[in-house]
C-alpha cells in the first residue's frame, strides 16, 4: 500500500478518534497539504455522524428549550454575528495629503515638535485603519516614513508623465541613508505579463531597481522603504513598464520620470 493510500485508509479512524501517536500526527501533517484527503475526511465525518443515531432516542426535558430561548433573549447584545468583510482598503492619497503639508513644515522644526507630530500621525493612522495587525505593521512603517520625510537631507522629487501617458503623477522622498518613499496615482492597470518597476538613477553608475509593483484598483501605488543600497546619491527617479517579475536594468517605456533638483 503506497503512502497516500495508507493516509486515506486512516481517515475513518481519524474521524473516529482512535488514531493515535505518530500515525495521527503523520495524517494531520498530510491533511494540511492534501485537499483531496481533507474532503474525504469531511465525508468520513459525515458517515460517522450517523452512529449518533444508534444512541437510544431520548427527548430532552422541556425546560431545556425554554432555557435556551431565555438565554438568547436575555442578552440582546448577542445577536448573531454577521460574517465580516475583509478590512477596508486604505486610501493612500487622503492619508498622504496632511503628511505632504507636514513635511514642508517639519524640516525647520525641533525634535520635540516632530515627536508630537509623530504621535498625532500615529493617532490618525490608528483611527483610519480597520485591521489591527495591519495597523501595527503600518505604524512601524509610518515612523520610518516620517523619518525620511523629516530628515533635512531628504530630497523631494516630483515625477511627471513622459509623453506617452499624460495622466499619471508621482512623488518620491529620498534620503541616502534613511530610504525611499514613493507614491503615485493614476497609473493604468497592466496586463498579467507586465509590471511597473521603480528605478533610482544615481549620479554615478547604472539605474538601481527600487522594486516592482502593481497599482491598486484606483491606480494608486505606494512603495515604502524598499531595500536599496545606502549612501547612493540620486540624480533621478523613474517608473518603467517591464515584463512581469522585473528586470535588472530598465528596458521598457518610461511612464514617470523626475529629476532631483
Amino acid at each position, binding site marked *: 500500500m503506497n503512502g497516500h493510500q495508507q493516509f486515506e485508509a486512516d481517515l475513518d479512524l481519524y474521524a473516529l478518534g482512535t488514531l493515535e501517536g505518530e500515525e495521527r500526527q503523520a495524517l494531520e501533517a498530510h491533511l494540511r497539504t492534501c485537499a483531496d484527503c481533507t474532503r474525504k475526511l469531511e465525508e468520513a465525518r459525515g458517515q*460517522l*455522524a*450517523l452512529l449518533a443515531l444508534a444512541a437510544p*432516542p*431520548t427527548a430532552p426535558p422541556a425546560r431545556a428549550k425554554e432555557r*435556551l430561548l431565555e438565554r438568547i433573549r436575555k442578552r440582546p447584545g448577542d445577536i*448573531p454575528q454577521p460574517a465580516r468583510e475583509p478590512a477596508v482598503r486604505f486610501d493612500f492619497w487622503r492619508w498622504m495629503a496632511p503628511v505632504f503639508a507636514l513635511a514642508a513644515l517639519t524640516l525647520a522644526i525641533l525634535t520635540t515638535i516632530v515627536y508630537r507630530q509623530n504621535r498625532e500621525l500615529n493617532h490618525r493612522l490608528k483611527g483610519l485603519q480597520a485591521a489591527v495587525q495591519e495597523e501595527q505593521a503600518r505604524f512601524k512603517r509610518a515612523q520610518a516614513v516620517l523619518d525620511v520625510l523629516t530628515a533635512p537631507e531628504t530630497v523631494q522629487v516630483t515625477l511627471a508623465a513622459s509623453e506617452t501617458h499624460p495622466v499619471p503623477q508621482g512623488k518620491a522622498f529620498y534620503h541616502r541613508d534613511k530610504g525611499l518613499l514613493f507614491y503615485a496615482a493614476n497609473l493604468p492597470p497592466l496586463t498579467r505579463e507586465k509590471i511597473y518597476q521603480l528605478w533610482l538613477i544615481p549620479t554615478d553608475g547604472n539605474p538601481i531597481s527600487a522594486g516592482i509593483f502593481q497599482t491598486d484598483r484606483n491606480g494608486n501605488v505606494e512603495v515604502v522603504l524598499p531595500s536599496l543600497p545606502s549612501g547612493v546619491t540620486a540624480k533621478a527617479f523613474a517608473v518603467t513598464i517591464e515584463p512581469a517579475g522585473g528586470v535588472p536594468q530598465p528596458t521598457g517605456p518610461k511612464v514617470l520620470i523626475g529629476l532631483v533638483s
Partner: protein
Amino acid sequence: MGAKAEISDLALVRRVVEGDESALASLYDRYGGLVYSVALRILRDAQVAEELLQDIFYQLWRRASSFDPTRGSLAGWLLVIARNRAISLLRRSNPGITEELSELKVASPWNLESATAQNQLMGRVKAVLEKLPPPQRQALELAYFEGLTHTEIAQRTGDPLGTVKTRVRAALESLKKALNP
C-alpha cells in the same frame, strides 16, 4: 417532537442569521432530540447532557453566519460536535475546544430534516450494528461512545492491538457499505 420538514435547514439557518429566534427554535425542535440522545448516551448524566445541548444550540445561534451550506451539512455538524464535546467532557480532555461552525466541515448526503427521515436512518444504523460480529460492534461502540483509542480498547477487551484496529476498520467498512445511498 415535531420537526417541521417544510422549511429546509438552509432556510432556517438564514433566518437565524437575521436574528429570528423562532428559526432557532425550529432547528432545536428538529435536531435537539438527536443531540441530546447522543450526549446522554455518552455522558450518562442528564444534567450535563442538557447543558451541552443548550451550549451547542447557543453556539449555533451566535455563529450561524459562518455556516456555509455548500460545504457541509448542519445536521452532520451538530452530531459531530455533540459527540466530540461529550467525549471531551467525559474524558475531561481539552475541555476548551470549541470547533467553529466554519472550521469543522461535515459532508453528509443524508437528509435528516424530517422526523421520518431520522427514524428511517436510525433503523438502518441499528440494523447495521446488529449485523456486525459482536467483537467488531463492541470495538466500534467503545470507540464512538466512550472515545477510547485502539490501545485503550485493547486494554479493555484484552485483545491484541492489531486485532482491535482490524475490527474497528472492518466495522467502519460495513457501516459505510450499508449506509451509502
